[in-house]
């Protein structure tokens, strides 16, 4: 059993840590207030190569293993989650479909520009009437000669305001239910592609999720991603593999909150001594550390399983669920330890508290993860006979 990261991953992690600390953290409050990530930070992230971590080296990326990606996600989790989300969605659900299912031509066309960050990626599954029940999407794609004509709409699509390449799920055969869904690679400037309003959100400022409208959107047949009729399963696969990545981002945010909380508890004096000397406070810190340690083990183990090619449906659901719940628990305790300062919008803690909340909802709600875990338990039980 080996619990250390490869040397070069350690080096990558350290570089990203420095970048986050020196370039992103100093503008975190500005991102929050302006609801915008400064272009300078995005440009620096591009130069650094952050947009290419999931893309193979032959297409200009880093070709990192899931463990490697998680190591980097952990570091970018330690700052404003809007930035984390931009990179996370692009290098996760925004690109992984093309990396794993794309044809050689598709990879050549899209991946180099996505690796450099010139083209940002997004993933469009959710519709107003199909959220948790993603197989119920209504967007249709009808083949006409060498193109598909797509009609319908999506909402809450992360990165949509700025993305150029969208992995879009649409129904090609309504009679077949989930087996009648196909995934497409859609470019922003294809005729009939309309980006709607940007959602106003409780948190995750600087990350822009939008509605999309497809009005006789024309997509060439060579832009079908994977096989026709496999779109729903493609989407599940993309989401499943991304789950360790989301957990790693949450892990980074939790670590940030714990570090800040320890520091504050040592400095803040009430009743003549630092509050960390109050057992009630120290125990909160202990519980945070305990949760974080468990999450760290789970995250890297699931990532390792993905790298080994082991099927991780149940484990991926577990790590997504656990990571979100831990993040929310830790953020709650961090606010509590900081007292009034924890609630103040002039201090970063309340921002994490709000940003933590989305992790129990997107990429599959906590309830849906429990459903997945339960279903897998039953399957495993039946298999054993």
């Amino acid at each position, binding site marked *: 059993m080996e619990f250390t990261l490869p040397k*070069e991953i350690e080096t990558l992690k350290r*570089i*990203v840590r420095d970048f986050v600390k020196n370039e992103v953290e100093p503008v975190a409050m500005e991102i929050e207030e302006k609801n915008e990530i400064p272009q300078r930070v995005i440009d620096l992230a591009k130069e650094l190569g952050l947009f290419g971590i999931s893309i193979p080296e032959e297409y200009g990326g880093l070709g990192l293993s899931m463990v490697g990606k998680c190591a980097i996600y952990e570091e970018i989790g330690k700052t404003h989650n809007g930035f984390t989300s931009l990179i996370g969605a692009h290098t996760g659900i925004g690109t992984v479909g093309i990396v794993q299912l794309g044809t050689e031509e598709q990879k050549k066309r899209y991946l180099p520009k996505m690796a450099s960050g010139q083209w940002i990626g997004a993933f469009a599954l959710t519709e107003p009437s199909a959220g948790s029940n993603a197989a119920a999407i209504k967007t249709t794609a009808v083949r006409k000669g060498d193109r598909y004509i797509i009609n319908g709409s999506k909402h809450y699509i992360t990165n949509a305001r700025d993305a150029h390449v969208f992995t879009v799920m649409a129904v090609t055969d309504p009679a077949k239910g989930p087996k009648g869904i196909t995934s497409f690679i859609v470019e922003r400037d294809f005729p009939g592609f309309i980006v709607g309003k940007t959602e106003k959100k409780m948190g995750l400022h600087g990350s822009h999720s939008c509605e999309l409208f497809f009005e006789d959107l024309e997509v060439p047949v060579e832009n079908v991603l994977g096989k026709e009729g496999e779109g729903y399963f493609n989407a599940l696969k993309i989401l499943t593999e991304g789950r360790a990545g989301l957990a790693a981002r949450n892990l980074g945010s939790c670590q940030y909150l714990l570090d800040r909380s320890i520091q504050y508890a040592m400095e803040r004096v009430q009743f003549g001594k630092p509050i960390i000397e109050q057992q009630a406070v120290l125990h909160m810190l202990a519980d945070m550390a305990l949760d974080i340690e468990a999450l760290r083990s789970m995250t890297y183990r699931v990532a390792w399983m993905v790298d080994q090619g082991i099927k991780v449906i149940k484990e991926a659901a577990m790590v997504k669920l656990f990571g979100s719940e831990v993040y929310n628990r830790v953020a709650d305790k961090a606010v509590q330890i900081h007292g009034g300062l924890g609630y103040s919008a002039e201090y970063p803690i309340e921002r994490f508290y709000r940003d933590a909340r989305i992790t129990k909802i997107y990429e599959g709600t906590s309830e849906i993860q429990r459903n997945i875990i339960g279903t897998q338990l039953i399957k495993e039980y039946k298999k054993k006979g």
Partner: protein
Amino acid sequence: MNILVCLKQTFDTEEKITLENGRINEEGVEFVINPYDEYAVEEAIKLKEQFGGEVTVITIGPERAEQALRTAMAMGADKGVIVDIEDLGDNVDEHTIAQVLAATIKEEDLAFDIILCGYMAIDDGSAQVGPRLAELLEIPHISTITKLTIDGNKVTVDKDVEGDVEVIESTLPILVTAQQGLNEPRYPSLPGIMKAKKKPLTRLELDDLDLDEEEIVAKTETIEVFLPPKKQAGKILQGELVDQAKELVHLLRNEAKVI
């Protein structure tokens, strides 16, 4: 242009220094390229971008120091040499390091037009290795530079002299040491790090070098290592101004013993 950079891996500037049995404790510490050496690496890569050629980075240090070389390679250096002199134990000082560097350059047949070093290492802060190495190689050296221009054989530098600037001209081959302000070191890119893994790295030990151990052992002796005394809270004098002034002089003379 053949460019050499000598660099040292040092404690991260944010690490707290702690002592254990009279030695600096390295456990759990993050190491970085000595910040002044980072300026040297950046300048070397800029020279390569301007004139073409090759950048070789050299370090003397334990196994972990490879990381520093790989980082420099990720920034753009082409190859690295790491010399392990742990056999010498604590018998190492600036004299030793300069001798080993000179021997390494000879042993590895490293041609150079210019050698760049940081002007000092932030850990022991001696600022001697660069000038000593230049002496051994019998080439000119200029330290604490904040600007470097090379035109043909001619070298023009701005040298920081306690806040003032001296403009100095010299010729290649030369050794210069970098002061803060020389440039803004780039982040090594992530793809650069993956590529750096495959760049050539030579490992040497003392035995590989043509050196007499007797001659290179430290010429200085460290008698004691201790942390600076903790800063005391300031004293605020009160009362009539005249009395305060008297009290201040008294304290400076008898307590602080500075006048």
